[in-house]
């Protein structure tokens, strides 16, 4: 170093440096093993780079070595908070490929399960979001209610987290004789509980201050990125696969599609995304009640094929999972194993907007925004 350069540094004003903060993969609020590389200017975030892959289990490659029915339990492990929805999507895709007609009862059972799963998944989203903001009590209230749903699932198929329940062409078990009564009881108990959580969290002034006007996602950005589900609806766009591209028997039920209205801030802020989920739980309750009323009798396993050997071809089908549009693309080469399975995971797509949303906010807001997008790492990494 020459003497000149030393003189130069003396004349420079106070030098500030950009700090790189590594958030995760072992961080309490990255919702799993996500690693975020935050570039900070003081406490202001200038750039967010998500690093994924810590939970990669080669789902898609695995599928190529398994027969079609064997894939079902593996789909459970993608979005582990909504396995019923994953199975539902896979079953629908395969039935489209095989051209199976389902008994009425199976359709109803699947819809009930998927909607119960939606409630349980949204409860986790709500609870963990509260915990992210610092309110720990609603978290346990939500888990208390989720526990009841898990008990309903356990009653039906014996498992509490990964069900292997919805099979190609049917379901693994018929409903328990008590199921209908207990589900009605649950919904009756659940509505006041939801109200309680709302009073404790959703309308809390501090919570609103923390979430309203934070992480605003405009409709056009959301569509450009391919964001779907509650995140897209939170931006004020009425898009729900159950309504837009009806599958199963969703056309038979009456329900609303809640969208973000910018009640406390701008349309598409974190509070809107959060509150869409709260409202959706009520809609799911409505669907379950109607389905329970109309539930027909019948055999649930009559349409299950003995041997799944689809014709050569390819198929894409999608369902509205709690986190958005879950799509399966399957290429069949005419054998008993698929040639290729590709999954369009909603969390994976939603996470892409993170950098856009977080720029210019503080570190605390990154947590808020990440929580409002509600990602599941099992689904992102597959």
């Amino acid at each position: 170093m020459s003497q000149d350069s030393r003189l130069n540094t003396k004349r420079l004003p106070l030098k500030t440096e950009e700090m790189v903060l590594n958030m995760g993969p072992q961080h309490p609020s990255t919702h799993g093993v996500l690693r975020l590389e935050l570039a900070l200017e003081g406490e202001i975030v200038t750039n967010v780079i998500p690093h994924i892959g810590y939970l990669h289990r080669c789902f898609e490659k695995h599928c190529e070595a398994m027969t079609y029915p064997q894939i079902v339990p593996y789909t459970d492990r993608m979005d582990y908070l909504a396995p019923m929805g994953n199975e539902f999507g896979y079953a629908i895709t395969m039935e489209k490929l095989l051209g199976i007609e389902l008994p009425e009862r199976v359709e109803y059972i699947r819809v009930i399960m998927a909607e119960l799963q939606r409630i349980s998944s949204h409860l986790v989203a709500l609870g963990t979001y509260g915990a992210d903001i610092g309110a720990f009590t609603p978290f346990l209230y939500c888990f208390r209610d989720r526990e009841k749903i898990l008990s309903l699932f356990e009653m039906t198929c014996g498992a509490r987290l990964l069900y292997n329940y919805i099979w190609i062409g049917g379901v693994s078990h018929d409903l328990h004789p008590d199921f209908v009564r207990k589900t009605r009881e649950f919904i009756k108990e659940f509505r006041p509980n939801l109200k309680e959580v709302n009073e404790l969290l959703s309308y809390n002034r501090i919570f609103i201050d923390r979430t309203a006007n934070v992480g605003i996602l405009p409709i056009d950005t959301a569509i450009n990125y391919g964001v779907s589900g509650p995140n897209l609806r939170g931006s004020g766009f009425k898009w729900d696969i159950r309504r837009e591209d009806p599958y199963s028997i969703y056309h038979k039920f009456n329900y609303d599609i809640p969208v973000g209205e910018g009640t406390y801030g701008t349309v598409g802020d974190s509070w809107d995304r959060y509150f869409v989920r709260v409202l959706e739980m009520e809609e799911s309750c409505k669907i379950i009640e109607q389905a329970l009323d109309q539930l027909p009798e019948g055999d649930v396993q009559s349409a299950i094929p003995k041997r799944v050997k689809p014709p050569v071809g390819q198929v894409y089908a999608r369902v509205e999972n709690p986190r958005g549009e879950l799509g399966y693309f399957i290429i069949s080469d005419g054998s008993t194993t698929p040639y290729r399975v590709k999954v369009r995971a909603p969390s994976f797509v939603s996470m892409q907007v993170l950098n856009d949303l977080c720029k210019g906010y503080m570190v605390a807001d990154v947590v808020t925004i990440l929580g409002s997008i509600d990602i599941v790492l099992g689904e992102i990494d597959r």
Partner: protein
Amino acid sequence: MIYDFLVNLFGNSAVADIIAGIIQSLLPLFVFILPFALFAVYLERKVSAHMQDRLGPMRTGWHGWKQTIADILKLLQKEDIVARDNDKMLFNLAPIIVFSGSYAAFAAIPFTSIFIGTEMDLGIFYIVAVSGIVVAGILMAGWASNNKYSLLGSMRSVAQIVSYEIPTMLVVLSLIMISGSMSLHTLSEQQTGYAWNWYIFGGPGSHLSKFLLIPFMFVGFLIIYISTLAEVNRTPFDIPEAESELVSGYHTEYSGMKFAMFFLAEYANMFAVSAIVVALFLGGYQSPIGYLGNLIGAKWMIPIEQFSWFTIKGIFFVFVQMWLRWTLPRLRVDQLMAVCWKYLIPIAFVNLIIIGLITLL
């Protein structure tokens, strides 16, 4: 008075003075702070559990009462980890400074009319000043940990504590104007009699200014309670330890007994600030309904009653702190500063001026 008793006990010499001084200064630690911290941790777990539809610790002893003792034993046995790149001296010194800062505050807190660590005229001033040492300890911990989360946490903590000392001081100042004393012992003695004589109800006496003061004293009480919440880093101001953002803030890197020191300091602090609020506004150790000892003519009972009243009032406010913690979400760091600089300080200033005018009446 306990000091005089001890000096007499040891034979009234220079050595007796020193022994009595040491015993007196350690008394609050072993008689009060340590048992209180154990109890408060247990209380916190039980309060949070019952608020959340849980039972909390149930396995160790009746309703899990031995849980915190077991926890302390566990912490004592844990490996004391010092990472390679830590600044070792600061790292080891920080918990001691933080703890001594909060422990020193107990010196000027009057537990009863006959026991106060040191009877100094600048009591409240001393407490505010000595709690400032905690800030240095926290900053040392954050810096020495060589961890970005710790550093962010400690910087936030320092900014927060320093900011919130201003409204606290302004309210304390207004009280000093009314009472004419900075000694917590004198302040408590002034509020003798019944609850009506407490400073939150305008203080002793029954002249016009007392009634004019009542609304402003309530405002002052709220301000000081909110600021003390922030000073001990409790929700909704627990930003330095914001688990969801900063893991554990400045004590992320600490383990074993050093972590326990921070923990102990936190709970000791919770009681200390509650005690200050109680001594300033709620009569200190004075009973709101008169003393049983006076009624039946047993004077020796009065200090015991006073101690119980003081503890009950203090623990009630500690309970309120816990209640808030398990109910409210957390503010963001800029919102926290906005609460202090945009609302609390101006209100406290106006409050101070009005109280000053009223006392001139």
